[in-house]
């Protein structure tokens, strides 16, 4: 089977097919909508959903505990005032990068293979950003006053501090969230209409009908849709670069050695794409297997993503190396120490997990065999996710724990509350993602049809 479906070979005569198998418009619609329309989801879905919801419940308990007692229930201290909280924030924002990159940048670059994965990559983005936003919101000492950080006109004429990178974060992430959501929803409209039209119950027809916004598939609809999609893609493209650049400003604009570095914006963006694609792969590989989507998410899709992973992984590796180089080349002894301490100090284990996961493991993708084995891909992508989490942990904690004055050095150890909160955020993410798989088409039906036609009719152009 696998051999027959190999579309990873590059044929100079033409483009490799992106939809395999003997599919027509109807069969694609059927294939994707069947999952949504099934009376009952597979048992595995229930099991997965139960686990995810339990973890979401744990998250809720942890947050309630945190709010009741105070931030002290976490392991933070002086000098390490940020730990798991901001690590998780940056990690989830990073995950949220791939979706818009796939939908916007790859769209503008006419990368047709994006159609197989863009829908759930975008969904993943939305859910990851939800998880991300949660962390800075709950990590503040007085969460009930968080709205003070928003520019809300008030009787005190007290505005937030526009010089603060945290405020920039607020704007960057909220903009990104809004645009991603709109983009995702717009792309969903034709598919929602398809489900509406296929609905057998009144309830389904009504609910999907509301969200389909009266889509009828007329030429005029399609015309406007395509225009809007293009404009949104153009709008979203700079956001892909800006969000993580701004997030990196949290660190880059500080005076702390190990944070205070001009390389941070591109380094963070590359890292985010790296981590985001890894997450897409972690989700895509099992999904295509379990939901029978191998025709639509083909080996070629995986192959392409592996190549991106390899490329961004090396960018990240380059950033690690150049950080070390600059810390030596700058002649700043405090900065020099931070990096030596990262690699050989009390958190060396975290640093080497990061290097091995992020730099070493993706190198297997030089091999085509590794790129075509879904489980190797899954394993590597999983490692990259771990590595990228540790990257943020290393940047935040190792820089803080030994900064300027040795008298104030300390060590940060997370408490069980922090560990469970992190686990709970995965619970929330997967809860949302599983709901998405159950109720929304996980593949952009209309777009896949588009490239299927293109591939059939335009192959010899």
């Amino acid at each position, binding site marked *: 089977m696998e051999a027959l479906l190999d579309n990873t070979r590059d044929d100079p005569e033409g483009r490799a097919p992106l939809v395999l198998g003997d599919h027509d418009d109807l069969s694609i619609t059927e294939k994707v909508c069947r999952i949504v329309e099934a009376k009952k989801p597979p048992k595995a879905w229930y099991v997965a959903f139960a686990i995810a919801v339990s973890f979401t419940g744990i998250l809720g308990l942890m947050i309630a505990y945190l709010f009741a007692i105070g931030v002290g229930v976490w392991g*933070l201290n002086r000098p390490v005032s940020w730990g798991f909280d901001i690590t998780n924030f940056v990690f989830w924002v990073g995950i949220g990068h791939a979706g818009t990159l796939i939908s916007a940048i790859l769209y503008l670059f006419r990368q047709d293979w994006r159609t197989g994965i863009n829908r759930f990559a975008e969904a993943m983005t939305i859910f990851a950003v939800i998880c991300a936003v949660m962390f800075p919101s709950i990590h*503040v000492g007085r969460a009930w006053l968080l709205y*003070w950080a928003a520019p809300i006109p008030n009787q005190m004429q007290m505005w937030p501090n526009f010089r603060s990178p945290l405020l920039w974060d607020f704007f960057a992430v909220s903009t990104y969230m809004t645009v991603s959501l709109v983009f995702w929803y717009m792309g969903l409209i034709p598919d929602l209409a398809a489900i509406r039209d296929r609905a057998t119950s009144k309830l389904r027809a009504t609910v999907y009908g509301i969200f389909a916004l009266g889509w009828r598939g007329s030429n005029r609809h399609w015309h406007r849709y395509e225009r809007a999609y293009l404009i949104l893609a153009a709008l979203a493209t700079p956001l892909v670069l800006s969000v993580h650049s701004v997030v990196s400003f949290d660190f880059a604009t500080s*005076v702390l050695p190990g944070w205070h570095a001009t390389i941070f914006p591109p380094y963070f963006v590359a890292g985010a794409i790296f981590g985001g694609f890894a997450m897409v792969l972690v989700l895509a590989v099992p999904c295509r297997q379990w939901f029978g989507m191998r025709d639509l998410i083909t080996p070629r899709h995986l192959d392409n993503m592996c190549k991106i992973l390899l490329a961004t992984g090396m960018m990240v590796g380059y950033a690690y190396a150049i950080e070390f180089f600059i810390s030596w080349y700058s002649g700043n002894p405090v900065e020099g120490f931070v990096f030596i301490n990262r690699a050989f100090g009390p958190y060396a284990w975290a640093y080497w997990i990061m290097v091995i996961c992020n730099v070493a493991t993706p190198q297997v993708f030089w091999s085509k065999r590794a790129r075509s084995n879904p489980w190797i891909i899954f394993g590597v992508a999983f490692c990259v996710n771990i590595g990228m989490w540790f990257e943020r942990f290393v940047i935040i904690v190792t820089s803080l724990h*030994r*900064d*300027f004055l040795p008298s*104030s050095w300390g060590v940060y150890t997370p408490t069980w509350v922090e560990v469970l909160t992190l686990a709970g955020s995965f619970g929330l993410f997967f809860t949302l993602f599983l709901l998405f798989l159950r109720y929304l088409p996980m593949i952009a039906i209309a777009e896949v049809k588009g490239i299927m036609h293109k591939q059939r009719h335009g192959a010899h152009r």
Partner: protein
Amino acid sequence: MSPVMWRSLEDLADDPRLVETVSREFPLYADEMLAPSRRDFLRLMGASVALAGMTACRRWPTEHIVPFAHMPEGYVPGSALQFASSFDVSGAGRGVLVTSFDGRPVKIEGNPLHPASLGATDPTTQAAVLELYDPDRSVGLLERGASAEGASRRWSEFAKAMEPVLAAHRASGGTGLRVLAEPSSSPTQVALRARFAAAFPKASWVEWDPLTRDAEREGLRLAFSRPVRRHLDLGRADVVASFDCDLLFDDPQSIAHARAWAQSRRGAGGTMIRLWSVETTLSLTGGAADHRIAVKSGLVPVALGRLAERLKRAGVPLPSEVDRFGSHAFDDPRLDRMAADLLAARGRAVVAVGPAHPAAAHALAAAINAGLSSGAVRYTDVPDPDRPPHAKAVLTLAHEIEDGAVETLVLLGGNPAYDAPRELDLETKLKRVRRTIRLGLYDDETSLSCTWHLPRAHALEAWGDTRAWDGTVGIAQPLIEPLYDGKSAIELIAFLIEGRFVHGYDLVAATHGESGWRRAVHDGVVEGSGLPGVVPALDPGWPASLGALADLRTDGHELTFIRSASLLDGRFANLGWLVELPDPVTKLTWDNALLVSPEDAKALKIEANGTVVRVVANGKELSIPAYVLPGQAAGAFTASLGWGRTRAGRVGTGVGTDAYALRFAGTPWRVEAKIAITSDHVRLATTQDHQLVDALGKREARIRGEELVRTGTLSTFRHDPAFAKEMVHVPEPAPLWDPPVPYDGHKWGMAIDLTACTGCHVCTIACQAENNIPVVGKDEVLRGREMHWIRVDRYFDGTPEEPSLAFQPMACHHCENAPCEPVCPVAATVHDHEGLNVMVYNRCIGTRYCANNCPYKVRRFNYFNNHKHRTAIEAMVFNPEVTVRARGVMEKCTYCVQRISVAKIAAKNAARAIADGEIVPACAQACPTQAIVFGDLNDSGSRVRALHDDARAYGVLEEINTRPRTRYLARLKNPAGGGSQA
């Protein structure tokens, strides 16, 4: 309230109707209030109006119904008043000024007129207000029969019960009556003692002090054949050799010593005092010394003898007996240079021996000082020449109890059941005495074994008087009515004599007489009351005692005892401020530890601090965590006393390890011991080096330490006064905005002289008292969440075997270019027009970003509601001028902005400029050496301006362009030979 009239306090407290009414009227404090306050307040007010507006009331303003009808002249409600008072600690007076808000004392400061204070305090004095409002203080009289809980009693019941007892004792001339008192310098108490002796000629009066300085007293008696007291004037010394004598910290005159020492160390005029130290455990004096020789405690007198022998060879008139030291196995070549140094400074050289060493060593030191014709030593008579030595007295008492000769024992303060020599087992012995009457602040270990516990009035609640080490008399006046119906020691003694209670005021006033009384109360000191100097002649027979000294040997491991830097002898064990105050040298909080030298740690395989070791001495055993301390003499193990209390209160019970357990009468300071490692480990909470620092971190810390605490020798300084500025390259900043903020009004700044800082940590606790800083507990300190706004960073320099201590007080630097400010998303930390980096607690949402971006790491975060379990009585200690911070809020040093505001308002009302020195932050106020100076940098005549412009001045981390307003003055050392060898 019923219109009950009464004649005296005693009547009042007895009236059940009144007590009931009061409980109803003040439900909040019903338990603590056995005597009502308001009428007392008015009664006292009658006296206090005459006393320059002294006010004393319990609290203000909530529950009082009767208006403030007789407002003292000049009194402004809500504004602070200061009253002079004085405290007695171990028989020496310390003058203080107490700040009181509407009758509520909240802050202790030093009294500039008092010779033992000079306007500064030591750390323990600062905590007196916390002790006053300690909810664990005993709240009433207890009569203990069979049950340990005891029955609650009233003073009238006590008086009634005592009536026949006292009558019987009076009839028998005091047979079977004994008093065991803590040392007191009070002239009133001395007078009462004489009356007591007259009333009960067969009774005896015993004093016990676990930290006794009797060795010195006996040594001087030996040398001069009369009891005299030694006084040092370091201002008249050029070379000081301290033999285990912590002159700068653990001494009744430590503040005066530190002040004079620091004055000379500043290097003005190109000379400075040189300090040699021979000691066992790194002390603040040893840490500040230019040369330090670490030897076992048993060899310190031998080192002194070796020095004497050298001096004699060089022609100093010393008896031939010192030659016997020449054959002792111990010697140290550095003593040659010490001897040469002392000789070169003849007349201005002085030797001092610490209280832990035998009397003969003190006699020898006296002879050396006489031989060097030292001008820095002065002698006076002692105020209590007939007192037997503490150890002897308590032994006698124990034997008398054993023999059944004691029928009634009155215990005034102290805590002998806990701190008396353990082989006496006073705890059990006390129970054999038919009647034991204990006057104490706490219902503690001793009270538990007594038949009567009487609540003692706190020093801030009672009239009293003290005598400083130099004899100066200080008056103690109450700032508040007794919260718990306590009585002072003098009131109880007067009761024993007269059979009725006399008010302390009458007793103290009677001692001092009419003339000058008002002035004395106002100033807190009686002018010219210092002890007159005497010039004693050496007794020709004294050298006979040197034989035993020259035969001192110490082979195995020795255990030495030192006082706790913060808890003293254990009396302050329930005061959170002090328990959480880091030990100046080890930085330990919430624990004591056995201090072990690095060599011994290696030999005993103690790999980490906190490894529990078993110490066997005097046939007793003690398990105590070890702490490896650089500079500890090899073979010597040191444990600080005062910890491991079993009945201290909520804070102090069970904290630390009780080293008294191994302390016997014969070996009060040093005992041969066997030390063995165990497999147990406890976590020690330190405020620095929170976790074990690996080799990589240690090396870096060492490099950085040099840049942070910039140190030079006197000769470097003479050669290049600005050496400190040149140690770190500060690039010329390229500001984006031009010109920078002008700050053309006031421009506040601070200067900290690291040469003067001895590291005593009083700034930390003065700040804690002033700024309502919470105590967080051991677990939180272990997490690294202590809240001190000003900490004292400690670095070692030199080698691990021969270290010296470098201290750096570190608080908010109020950077002009503050990294904390731009990062706050809600603008909760901003700059004001006078350059203060102000923290707006109300606006803070707690992102902690500012703390991350603060390069000095001086910001403190309220991870929890640190005031959740605060009782109403504890809340009284708060300074009303300073916000009590909520959970989730960042806080940090404000340069005592409340004090700045008070001075600004006063100056504005008087239409004048603020004078330099008018604004003194709490840290600077308490500093014994005046190392911290605050003021207006725009005032060209201000001290802080001059210090900022000083050649030694430098800014920490200036190179990252923070433009700090706090600048440090480089630390100078004065090694012999100009620094070629340290």
